[in-house]
């Protein structure tokens, strides 16, 4: 089974893209939003994930956020930075707590920033390995900005450091 990184651990990828032909099978299924809207009423067992593109409007996902265990954001090219904003919006504005997974053009050199934007799952592109992705995480011991990873900016930590002695 393919390996992915979730919460900084290498785990087998249990998620399968939904196809109408095998709709009865259980397990972890990934749906496009329209697919999920169509089958939602008669969905069977198993966890549900949504497969979205980087230009997805998070507002359209809002009604389904409580019922989906995973949102896979498909990054067509790693230089497309829209997924980074989508990740932050899902976490910080919409309060989504499930897994946000980067799929598509995901390499060692991009996961650090994606993780800071709220992604906690990473599926390596063909030719890249989960081991390498792990190596690409947590490269910096501090960060100036607020992000999902550090909701307070560095200047507030500097401040509490000083006033705390």
């Amino acid at each position: 089974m393919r390996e992915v990184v979730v919460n900084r651990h290498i785990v087998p990828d249990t998620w399968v893209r939904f196809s109408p032909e095998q709709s009865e099978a259980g397990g972890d299924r990934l749906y496009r939003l329209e697919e999920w809207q169509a089958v939602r009423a008669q969905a069977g067992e198993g966890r549900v994930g949504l497969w979205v593109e980087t230009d997805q409007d998070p507002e359209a996902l809002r009604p389904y956020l409580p019922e989906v265990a995973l949102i896979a954001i498909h990054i067509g090219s790693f230089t497309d930075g829209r997924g980074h904003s989508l990740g932050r919006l899902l976490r910080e504005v919409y309060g989504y707590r499930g897994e946000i997974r980067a799929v598509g053009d995901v390499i060692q050199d991009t996961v650090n920033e994606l993780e800071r934007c709220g992604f906690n799952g990473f599926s390596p592109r063909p030719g890249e390995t989960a081991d390498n992705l792990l190596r690409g995480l947590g490269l910096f011991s501090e960060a100036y900005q607020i992000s999902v990873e550090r909701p307070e900016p560095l200047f507030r930590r500097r401040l509490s450091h000083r006033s705390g002695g």
Partner: protein
Amino acid sequence: MYQYDEIDQRLVEERVARFRDQTRRFLAGELSEDDFRPFRLQNGLYIQRHAPMLRVAIPYGVLSASQLRRLAWIARTHDRGVGHFTTRQNIQYNWVKLPEVPDILAALAEVQMHATQTSGNCVRNTTTDHFAGVAADELVDPRVTCELIRQWSTGHPEFAFLPRKFKIAVNGAREDRAATGVHDIGLQAVQDAAQGLGYRVQVGGGLGRTPMVGEVVREFLPACHLLTYLDAILRVYNRYGRRDNKYKARIKILVKAMTVERFRREVETEWQHWKDGPATLVDEEVARIEARLKKPAYRALPAGIPAALAARLHHDTDFATWFRQNLHPHKVPGYTNVVLSLKSPDQPPGDASAAQMDAIADWSERFGFGEIRVSHEQNLILPDVALSDLPALYDALCPWELATPNVGLLTNIIACPGGDYCALANARSLPLAKALQDKFADAAWVRAIGPVDLNISGCMNSCGHHHVGHIGILGVDKHGREYYQISIGGAQAPARLGKVIGPSLAPEEVPDALQAMLEAYLKLRLDPAEKFVDTVARLGITPFRDAVYAPNQEVACA
């Protein structure tokens, strides 16, 4: 400049380590050329015509003596002994070797410098008034704002892959010396009687192939909201800016397409989620940064011209000319700011040799407080020089070709590297700059013409700011030959774009064309106080076009 604390230092070192590893993997064939490109760009490394070019940030144009010495050392050790100061308060090295770049970045980190985000589709080095903190007409010191933005933008995780590059400029003085109108975001500091310090926020200015002046998105943004508001602008841009066509990917295109009213609404809506949140600035942070900006210990000097200086001014006309042309008023009595022209007749505009840099570093300590500024006119500045030291400083500068009295004049040519180095160029800039220096070698005539900003870009990308030059020259490619298109009437602030006067000219025609226009100006101006650019504004381009192309001659498009 801002002095790093232990965390700032650690962050640049971690950045160097990351790039070192990426370079190693690239050289080992583990990271492909295509994959490596965005990461090397984000660390300042371009591949140019002959060799890789490294662009190093000089945040808000402020350098310490030891930093300038380090830049000299890099020029000597890793380049051919020269550095090129650019219009964006960066320095570029044109002959670096890729495997050595991680070591160069490590050498920079030792003196609290970096090449972070000096290229690539991310937030670039923030630029400002080169007289920040020392100008007589200053409302607020923009360096604190710039440092806040430097920290906010450095390694911002969300905005590493924007649709296109993103440039922010900040101005804190009455005169806009930061060209805020032609940046993706231009911030003009405003002191409001009731609300205190804030910014007027302009968005969507830029040069390049579609030059535009930015639109005001907010008349007054209270200073404490700076970072959350910037986040909101960038997020709207990151999500909605065009990514299908790199020529339409700048924020200016988005603002135009959306209209500024809708863009403003999108930003304000987005902002509501973050406004007053943890990223809202606190006074303590502003005070912390202020304390870390090294402040000179000025002496109490008498205002007015000291006797020895007056005597020298009286009997040495060269010195007097330099004194009139290359100084800028200081806010502290008895001090002045001295512009060191990097535009001597034989020097490519903006170039400084390693030896010159070392000498300038020494003078900054001897005559100032160990600080040097970089201007977007590609000159260096010694701020904080006591008036009484001017004769000694002048005598020191002369043998180094650093006292050419042409600041603000025609021969203070601003030029991009052009076809000699840049792979995107249509035409070379440097030989043309040299030809113009030779043509206008009569310094008295150049002074009689008065203030002229002359800007040269080797192609539409406009790195030489030709759109906002009083005279702008653009390199174009005509059937494989270098030609130059001339525009006039542009201005940096308030930003105004120049108008093209006619068909482009062959390189050897350009110097005569400029001379013809300037002679026409001498006849047409109301009085010597009317600058060339003001005459153009009053009369339009026609008399100048006629001067170049001869009035009745049908203008045949070559």
